[in-house]
C-alpha cells in the first residue's frame, strides 16, 4: 500500500515533467536560433538554390516565352490568311472589269498587273484606277514661233 508521502512525491514528479519538457524545448529553440543549418531551413530564397535549380528556373521561363511566341505567330498567320483571301477576291474582280472597259492601254494594263502582284505579296486590297482623260484646258503653254 502506497504511503501518503510516496503519493505526494509521485504527484510532485509528474508536475515537474511539463516543466522539464518546457525547459528542454526552450533549449532547443535557443539552439536553433544559433545554428545556421538548423535555422536556414525555414527561409525561402534563391540564395539557397543550387545551380541546377537556377538552370531549371531559367529553362522554365524560356519555355514560357516560346509558348507565347508560338501563340502570337499562330494569330498573325491567321490574319494574313484572311487578308490574302480578300486580296485575291479583289484582284479577280478588277481583272474581270478590265476587258469590259476595253480601252486600257498595254502600258496601263502592265502597270495594273504589277500593282496587283505587289499588293498580293503585301496582302493589301488592290484598287485599279482607269487612266483618266485629260481635263479640258483653257490655254496652252508651248514653244514660241519666235524667241
Amino acid at each position, binding site marked *: 500500500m502506497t504511503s501518503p508521502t510516496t503519493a505526494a512525491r509521485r504527484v510532485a514528479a509528474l508536475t515537474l515533467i511539463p516543466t522539464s519538457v518546457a525547459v528542454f524545448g526552450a533549449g532547443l529553440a535557443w539552439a536553433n536560433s544559433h545554428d545556421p543549418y538548423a535555422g536556414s531551413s525555414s527561409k525561402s530564397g534563391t540564395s539557397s538554390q543550387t545551380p541546377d535549380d537556377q538552370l531549371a528556373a531559367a529553362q522554365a521561363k524560356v519555355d514560357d516565352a516560346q509558348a507565347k511566341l508560338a501563340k502570337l505567330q499562330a494569330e498573325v498567320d491567321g490574319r494574313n490568311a484572311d487578308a490574302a483571301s480578300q486580296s485575291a477576291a479583289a484582284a479577280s474582280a478588277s481583272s474581270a472589269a478590265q476587258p469590259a472597259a476595253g480601252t486600257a*492601254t498595254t*502600258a*496601263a494594263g502592265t502597270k495594273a498587273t504589277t500593282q496587283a502582284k505587289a499588293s498580293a505579296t503585301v496582302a493589301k486590297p488592290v484598287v485599279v484606277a482607269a*487612266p*483618266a482623260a*485629260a*481635263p*479640258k*484646258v*483653257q*490655254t*496652252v*503653254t*508651248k*514653244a*514660241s*514661233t*519666235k*524667241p
Partner: protein
Amino acid sequence: MTVSTDLAVTFTSMASDIEIRVVDPAPGAEEAVDRAVAAIGAIATHLTRFDPESALSKANRAPAAWHDVPAVLADAISAAHSAHRVTHGLFDPRVGATLAAWGYDKSFERIQTEAVGTTSWDIEIHRTLRGAPVARATWEPTVTGTVINLGGSPIDLGGIGKGLAVRHAAAALADAGRSVLVDAGGDEWLAGPGPDGDGWKVGVEDPLGRDEHVLVLAVTDLGVATSSIARQRWTVRGVPVHHLVDPRTQTPGGAGLAAVTVLHPDPAWAEVWSKTLYLTGAADIAASAAALDLAAAWVTVDGEIGLSAAIRPFVLWQVTR
C-alpha cells in the same frame, strides 16, 4: 442670276498670236485692256532686232556709243542684265551674234524659206567667260527718254522680251476683272481663280508633236513660260541648230531636252528660268531645278517627262505612256 460676259482680245505681235481675256470684267476693264495692248506693242516696237529702225537695232549698230532710247528699252536691258547676273551668265543676250551668224537675223518664217547665210562655224564660234558682265550696260534718264551704252556688244532681247511684254500687260490688267489671262504665244500670265473658279487649266504642249498635252496644270496668279526646240530648228551647212544657244560654248544647248516649262510669279522670270534650265541639259536639269527651288517640268528628246518637287502641287493631270 448673274450673267457674265468675258472680255477677250486677240491680235498678232512679236510674230505670235496674242490673247488677252478678262473674266467678269470690272468697270474700266476695256481701258485696262487697251493699256495692256499698248504695252505689248511698245515692247514689240522697240525691242525687236528684226526691224532695222527699232531702238534696239540702232543701238546694236553702234554698241559702243551712247544712244537716246525709250524707257521701255532701257528697262528691258536692265532686266536682262539682272537675269545675266542671277543666272551666273547662262542667260546672255549677247548670243544674238551667234544666232545672226547662223542665219537667225530675220524672222523665223523667212529663215524657213530662204537660203541660210554662208557664215562658217569656225568664224562665228567664240567663247565667253561665264559670269562676265553683259557689256556693262549703263543708262541715265534724260528729258526725252534714257541714254544707254551697250559697252561694245550688240544684244538680243528675245530671251526675255515676251516675258516682259506679258509682265507689263499683267500690270495694266491688275484690276480689270475677277480673272485675267495674257498669252503671248505660250508665255503667259494667269491671274485669279480662272473661268471655273478652281484655277486656270493650262495644257503643256507636247514638244515631240503629239496632239495630246503632256501635262495639265492648275494655275493661279503665276506666269508660265515654255522654252522648246519644237519649232525653231534649222540647219547651217547640214548642221542642225536651234535658237537656244549656250553662251558657254556658243553652240546649241540643252543636250537631251526637248522642252522646259517653268511657273514663276513674274512672267519675265518664268521665261528667263525656262531658257536657263533648258541650257543645263537633261543630265542636270533635275538637280538645277531642285537647287533653285523652281516649279519646272521638262520633256526629254525621248519623250520622258520630268517634274521638280515645286511644280507637283500644280499638276492636275499627266499623260500616260
